[in-house]
């Protein structure tokens, strides 16, 4: 091998060692953590009291609605903080009010399903709650969620 090649080869070795060191130290993963898939069922955390239960319901419902709408659940959560943001969100994602209503219904059914899978309610209670939710007007549910997000519980 000619001496001319030795220098570039040493440069390659030094570069690979440095890049390898940075990758081994976590360089490829040093980015914001990825958003979980909203269509994967949530396991409820341990709850203490009604407030915790309602938080779990809200988070599961957000996931369910986001899954139904094929949008990010955290974009949807931010959209629910005001009517203006919700309207803008609908325009940005071409989502009609009817479509949003149906997604909210779907989200609440997801919350009931998550509660059942987490062992908080039994099959019969889940069935009863789903029947009750399907009878409630969706605009009232959205109004309730927005009030809860604006004022706390």
């Amino acid at each position, binding site marked *: 091998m*000619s*001496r*001319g*090649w030795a*220098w*570039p080869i*040493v*440069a*390659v070795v*030094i*570069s*690979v060692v*440095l*890049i390898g060191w*940075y*990758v081994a*130290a*976590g*360089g*490829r993963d*040093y*980015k*914001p*953590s990825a*958003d*979980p898939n909203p269509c994967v069922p949530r396991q409820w*955390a341990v709850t203490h009291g009604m*407030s915790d239960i*309602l*938080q779990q319901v*809200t*988070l599961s419902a957000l996931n369910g609605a986001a899954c139904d709408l094929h949008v*990010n659940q*955290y*974009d949807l*959560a*931010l959209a629910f*903080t005001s009517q203006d943001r919700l309207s803008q969100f609908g325009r940005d994602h071409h989502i009609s009010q009817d479509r949003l209503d149906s997604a909210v219904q779907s989200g609440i059914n997801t919350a009931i399903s998550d509660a059942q899978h987490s062992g908080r309610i039994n099959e019969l209670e889940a069935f009863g709650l789903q029947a009750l939710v399907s009878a409630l007007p969706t605009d009232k549910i959205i109004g309730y969620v927005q009030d*809860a*997000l*604006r*004022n*706390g*519980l």
Partner: protein
Amino acid sequence: MDRRTEIVALGLAVGLVLADSSVVILALPDILDQFSVSIERVAWVLTLFNLVLAISAVPAAFAARRLGAARVCSFGLIVFAAASLACAVAPHFDWLLAGRAVQAVGGACAVCAALELLVGRLGSDAQAALVWTAAGAIGAAAGPAIGGALTDLISWRAIFAVQVPLALFALFYVLREKGGVRSMVKPHRPSIAANLALALLSAALTAALFLVVLLLINGWGLTPLGAAVVVTAMPVTAAITYRFLPTPPSPRAEAATGLILVAGGLAALAVLPGKGWGWTLPPQALIGAGLAMALGALTRLALMGRVPLAVHGGWTIAARHAGVVVGLVVLTPVFTHDLLVQERAAEHAGTRLVLNAPLSLSHKIDLGSRLQDAINSGSPSRPPDIHPAFAPLGTTGAAPKLEAAIQDQVDRAVTHAFSRSFLYASLFALAALIPLALRRSRS
């Protein structure tokens, strides 16, 4: 007159002009704030200088050959000093841009003619090319650090103000020069391979010089002075490499080694494993060493055996600064896009952390709105300060852990926003090996 002082004065003229291609990078946020212009417009303070320098370098070199190097160099330094003064007192943004364009024309005359004058002083084309290249490389690499320090200690206007006496100092010695007119031999054709490689290397160095300081200041919140100290790693390593590293057996081997080191350093910056200026030092050291080797060797390849030297020096300046413009034009939209994507990713991550935190819903809602206020009210040129949003929650319970977790996500997003730009810059450096290899196979 002391020959050594004359050479220093000519080197200073070259370093001063070529430092100007990068010296204002750390001042851009202050210029943006002062003139209330958009980020896209403020970038023209850099782009225009490099563009005009690239366009005017070769005509300036021909002028030096026809009219006399001393005369053209003096003219260039006077124009450069006057334009620097105009930039220092610029009352509005368009004035500053016009000043930068005139600075570049004067700078092109001074740099190209200085090469001819160095040949006269040193008596050797190779020696002159070495001093000329080293002065330019150190000037370009030290530019951001010097500009950052002046901006932090005095004002962005000081960057241009200090150039006036320095240019006049060089002028004092150049005015005493005689002749500089070379024989009117038929000019050789420029080396396309070496100049193309120089252009690609310069496009890569755009990221090294500009994006590193943006990451340190706008991403990680260092002061311009702090960032200036950190980025001195590059010129210091470049100077050490020039001084102490044994020369490889051929300019091609030296250029290839340098290009690989620059590419490696930039690729390492694309996979930074954490926030912290210390992580930028090893890649900067590689880039500094690579810069010293590749820039020097490629310039020698472009100049070697070609006459007139000033004209071929002009071609290298044109290639280098065209490369800087290409780097800015290609990397700016990539970086801007990635920054928006990562802002969104950080917003999602923050929302997720707040929603899943062991806090009451009312605390979560209050915290969310305070965080949004903190992000919206912060300076667009600095990372958001989220700490005040957590103050009402106290320092006990889940709040400190949540604050640290959100800050970590913001840091990750900001750092990752630079990754693709550094990677593309690394590819520019590797692409510069292609014309080098083709030249070798043809020869």
